[in-house]
């Protein structure tokens, strides 16, 4: 249990590590954000390179990211006691090192504890607080969760206060359990339309540290009131609000359902972002337990749009667009936005969809994993992964297939 903040002290303003990168280097940010260990590799001679070059340093050919062996050996290790950069100065001492990667290049890396020259290390491609890809080397298999440098790169729920926005989502209950198990200090779970029965209310009540509070994302007042109460006490916000209603454009209820989906999924996110966003971005460096992550639990159908889910897909596409704006706002405080793209979930609304579907616990575990690794995008479910692969490979073919109901 972390100590309470001294209310007489000024909240530390968020500073960020150096964020300037080449345009090409953002390929690494995408890989790091998705948890892929990939390095720039020459498309002609096959040599790996580091840092991200514009062309192959050996033969001047094009480079592209390729999966690489995530291991190396420490050449030298240094502890910066008084760094010149203001971000690192506040967090000193800070360990850095030079590593000989097994795949060839040498790299300056952030270094885990107890790593000495000659040690074998595992390499991690991670996003730092500026949202840029960096290499982090640590002894293989070492538990890094207590390491303050690793802590800066991730969004560990331990000792943090979490808001889950919609208790009615299939993942909400297992998510509350998983967060408490991961050491979250408190978990507030919003209940939309609190005047309706919540079947899992008794089960929520049995989880220590979990509190249910009314929260309707379709209401400015409801969202603002909750922010007035706890906006300054949320370090991880997980938006689970959803309105899945199957139906194409011609469905009898299409207009009403699409409107409500937009209100919940897209405008609901905007309402949250307007009040919780600035509050969290302002607390991005508020001690060890400062605000650290915002999770939007979205649908893969926001990227791949089946006609039978027209309104639902449109709402999630809108939410993805809002999410990019929110990510930019949160980034000013070093708070990361994790987008979760789920396939159809195991609930009444996707009842007729073919298996495999995503269970609440699988979704909850994926969210906690994404936080622990400090990711920006997590895809959950075989169908979701398959759809995104097909979208990247041949988007027009996927459009045609979805039009024919071929998921």
């Amino acid at each position: 249990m972390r100590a309470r903040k001294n209310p007489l002290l000024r909240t530390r303003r968020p500073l960020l590590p150096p964020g300037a990168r080449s345009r090409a280097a953002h390929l690494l940010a995408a890989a790091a954000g998705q948890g892929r260990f990939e390095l720039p590799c020459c498309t002609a001679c096959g040599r790996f390179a580091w840092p991200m070059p514009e062309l192959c340093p050996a033969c001047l050919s094009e480079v592209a990211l390729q999966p690489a062996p995530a291991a190396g050996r420490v050449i030298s290790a240094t502890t910066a006691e008084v760094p010149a950069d203001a971000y690192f100065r506040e967090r000193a001492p800070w360990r850095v090192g030079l590593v000989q990667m097994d795949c060839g290049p040498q790299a300056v890396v952030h270094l885990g504890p107890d790593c000495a020259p000659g040690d074998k290390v595992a390499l991690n491609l991670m996003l730092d607080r500026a949202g840029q890809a960096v290499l982090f080397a640590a002894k293989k298999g070492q538990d890094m969760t207590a390491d303050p440098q690793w802590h800066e790169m991730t969004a560990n729920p331990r000792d943090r206060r979490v808001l889950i926005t919609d208790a009615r989502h299939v993942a909400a209950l297992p998510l509350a359990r998983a967060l408490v198990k991961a050491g979250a200090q408190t978990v507030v779970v919003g209940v939309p339309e609190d005047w309706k029965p919540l079947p899992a209310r008794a089960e929520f009540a049995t989880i220590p540290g979990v509190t249910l509070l009314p929260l309707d994302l379709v209401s400015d007042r409801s969202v603002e009131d909750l922010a007035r109460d706890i906006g300054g006490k949320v370090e991880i916000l997980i938006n689970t609000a959803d309105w899945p209603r199957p139906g194409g454009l011609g469905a009898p209820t299409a207009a009403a359902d699409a409107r409500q989906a937009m209100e919940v999924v897209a405008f609901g996110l905007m309402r949250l972002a307007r009040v919780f966003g600035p509050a969290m971005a302002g607390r991005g460096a508020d001690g060890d337990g400062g605000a650290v992550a915002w999770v939007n639990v979205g649908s893969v159908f926001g990227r791949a749009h089946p006609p039978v889910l027209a309104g639902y897909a449109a709402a999630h596409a809108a939410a993805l667009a809002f999410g990019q704006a929110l990510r930019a706002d949160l980034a000013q405080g070093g708070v990361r936005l994790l987008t979760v793209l789920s396939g159809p979930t195991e609930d009444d609304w996707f009842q007729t969809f073919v298996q495999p579907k995503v269970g609440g616990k699988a979704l909850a575990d994926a969210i906690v994993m994404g936080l622990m690794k400090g990711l920006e995008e997590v895809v959950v479910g075989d169908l979701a992964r398959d759809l995104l692969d097909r979208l990247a490979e041949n988007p027009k073919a996927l459009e045609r297939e979805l039009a024919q109901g071929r998921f």
Partner: protein
Amino acid sequence: MILETLTSALATGAVRVVDLTQTLTEDFPTIVLPPEFAPSAPVRIERISRYDAAGPAWYWNNLSFGEHTGTHFDAPAHWFTGRDMPRGTVDTLPPEHMIAPAVVIDCSAESAADDDHLLTRAALEVWETAHGRIPAGAWVLMRTGWSLRKGAAYANLRADGAHTPGPDAEAMRWLVQDRGILGFGTETIGTDAGQGGDFQPPYPAHHYLHGAGRYGLQCLTNLHLLPAKGAVLFAAPLKVHEGSGSPLRVLALVPDAS
């Protein structure tokens, strides 16, 4: 002369104005349908500006809601039985129907004891023995005390649907066909009982009222401030083009008991 007498009575307090309207809020329960049916939009109040950068000297909101939210009026066209009624929508409603006498049937004790209490014809006849015949063209208001409940207790939803008091089918048939009432009003979300969908006919208040071109009022409050008879109701829905109903302000004129 009559109106001068009325305004004088209002000024002296000999006639009081009682507000029978719930405040229109975003979290007030609305009717719940099986979710495969299209839902009503809830009440939403979104600020445009409040003396701020969005409008430095003025305060105003965007307001949206379904026609059947908050304290609201049901027009005949709301139900299939009233679809062919002339002047059956709120924009064509005869304005003289918007001011009418009201009688109050006190079912508060029975409703406190039984969430599913049903108002019967027998109970109405007992009321008539005490207060006289229910006048044709009057509102009949069912007082249950339900408006004192809040949130989940007000909606009172269970696995088999809502459990709220209301009229039984024979009571509604009798009120409409034998007494010629203008409309029926309740403190609950609907004019029908929570379990009214399983009555014969289903939703008898909607069925009989609207089938005869009569009206419904629901989500009323302060009915305990009204006498059993002698009040006059002002119930004027918004003039929505082809509207099936609307939220409205319901006022009662009541002779001062003291």
